């Protein structure tokens, strides 16, 4: 919880009933309490699109909203719109499992995700919005000597890059999470790699917080506005056609992960991306059971607990091209089997809901933040199933690229042409087979 005690405007102004959304503070909460909470303003304006913008961001997910916010707040570019085909928070920003971490191995990734972690650490004060960022730790379990060595290497790479990492033995893990099956005959838990600064955040509040802070900086957030074409003049992107009419822009930025191929195709581009469905799960609410994030090392499964009490967990993508936002039973079975292998006690808890989101699975498992071959068209894509944790740095670096026409140093490796030049960033080392990343 972040109680924000900073006041940058007089208290009376924060109670005004017109104009941009109010600044949230303990004083505005107190004042509203005295008024029976009847004076709250919408968190952001539901804007009507203007004919032209300096920058038009397609996609009102976490990354698009963050991009617009950082364009306005860090680069002074305030004539910006975010256009979203549905409503804010209806896509992947509200479909993930809310984990944040920066435990990456490769040089192209580590500094980027660490910037993201640092932005998470100051996010609520920066946005003036409670995103419930909780640094409860992320613990990756290992089950063999070889896996321990691989995690030691990863931890050392992280520490060399200034990221926190601790290699725990079995008894240290047991002290943290005593209820796991340590005696599992096939995959006994030997220890874990812990990033204490990792954890979770409330994903809806991340979308709302960026929308709130972007709006306060002049960004127009246009909902129910689907792009139907990218307008081109002399080979340059000059705007879009939408279900709410044409909008011109000096720069057009794509942040539509899941649908990147479809939107890029409107500008004649083919991307190194396949769209796949990833399922996620939540159990019925139970009393506090697990106060950290645990990932199973012998299968793809990870679990944490939301503040409402539900166990939130996930596993592999289904593994075939899909835009359906729903998956099939084999992956559900696989995730439940992994859960039971790691933590037999969860067998007594009922699953409440599951859902699917569409991932941009790139050909090396890493994202793209770059210019495109089309002048005036910028691309933010390929987040695979790691986009949520990247939200702040993705927006930060994409805004930098759009504003200055040069990559931010920590995102310089996320080039679109790296597949052609061989400079791929393949954390898992499985090659150009998206369903294996």
């Amino acid at each position, binding site marked *: 919880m972040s109680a924000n005690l900073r006041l940058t405007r007089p208290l009376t102004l924060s109670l005004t009933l017109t104009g941009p959304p109010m600044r949230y503070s303990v004083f505005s909460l107190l004042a509203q309490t005295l008024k029976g909470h009847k004076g709250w303003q919408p968190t952001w304006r539901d804007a009507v699109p203007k004919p032209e913008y300096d920058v038009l961001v397609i996609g009102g997910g976490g990354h698009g909203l963050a991009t617009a916010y950082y364009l306005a707040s860090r680069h002074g570019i305030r004539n910006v719109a975010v256009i979203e085909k549905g409503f804010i928070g209806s896509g992947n920003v509200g479909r993930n499992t809310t984990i944040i971490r920066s435990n990456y191995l490769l040089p192209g990734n580590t500094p980027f995700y660490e910037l993201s972690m640092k932005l998470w650490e100051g996010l609520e004060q920066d946005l003036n919005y409670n995103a419930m960022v909780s640094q409860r730790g992320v613990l990756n379990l290992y089950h063999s000597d070889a896996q321990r060595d691989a995690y030691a290497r990863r931890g050392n790479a992280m520490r060399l890059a200034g990221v926190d990492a601790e290699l725990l033995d079995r008894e240290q893990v047991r002290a943290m999470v005593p209820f796991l099956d340590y005696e599992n005959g096939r995959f006994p838990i030997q220890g874990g790699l812990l990033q204490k600064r990792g954890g979770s955040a409330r994903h809806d509040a991340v979308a709302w917080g960026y929308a709130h802070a972007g709006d306060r900086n002049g960004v127009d957030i246009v909902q129910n506005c689907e792009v139907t074409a990218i307008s081109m003049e002399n080979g340059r992107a000059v705007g879009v056609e939408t279900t709410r009419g044409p909008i011109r822009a000096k720069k057009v930025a794509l942040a539509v992960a899941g*649908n990147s*191929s*479809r939107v890029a*195709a409107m500008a004649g581009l*083919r*991307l*190194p*991306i*396949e*769209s796949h469905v990833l399922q996620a799960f939540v159990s019925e609410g139970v009393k506090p059971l697990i106060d950290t994030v645990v990932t199973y090392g012998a299968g793809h499964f990870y679990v944490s607990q939301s503040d409402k009490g539900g166990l939130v967990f996930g596993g592999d993508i289904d*593994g*075939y*091209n*899909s*835009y*359906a936002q729903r998956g*099939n039973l*084999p992956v559900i079975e696989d995730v439940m089997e992994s859960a039971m292998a790691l933590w037999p006690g969860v067998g007594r808890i009922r699953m409440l809901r599951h859902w699917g989101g569409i991932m941009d699975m790139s*050909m090396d498992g890493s994202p793209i933040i770059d210019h495109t071959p089309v002048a005036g068209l910028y691309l933010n894509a390929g987040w695979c199933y790691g986009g949520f944790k990247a939200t702040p740095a993705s927006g930060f670096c994409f805004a930098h690229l759009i504003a200055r026409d040069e990559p931010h140093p920590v995102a310089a490796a996320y080039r679109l042409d790296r*597949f*052609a030049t061989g400079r791929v960033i393949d954390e898992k080392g499985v090659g*150009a*087979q*998206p*369903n294996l990343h």
Partner: protein
Amino acid sequence: MRITCPYCGARDAQEFGYLGDANPQRPDGMDATEAAMHDYVHLRDNPAGRHRELWYHGAGCHAWLVVTRDTRTHAIEAVEVARKTKAGAAA
């Protein structure tokens, strides 16, 4: 999702492995330009809708199949044996 294998009948998708889009054709590695090879290895149409794709019946007859499936609904329109359809040839 069930896939009706021409040899084995309707089987759970769990029995099959997925490779991806069946349309890209591997260029001759001795002749192809780097750009053509890059296009084959990395770039995909990734359509929302009808998709011809390669599946392998690993827990069944071990045949490679070309499945025509709608990526928006997962509905399967056709399943052919890849060897007979010249895998990689456009539909």
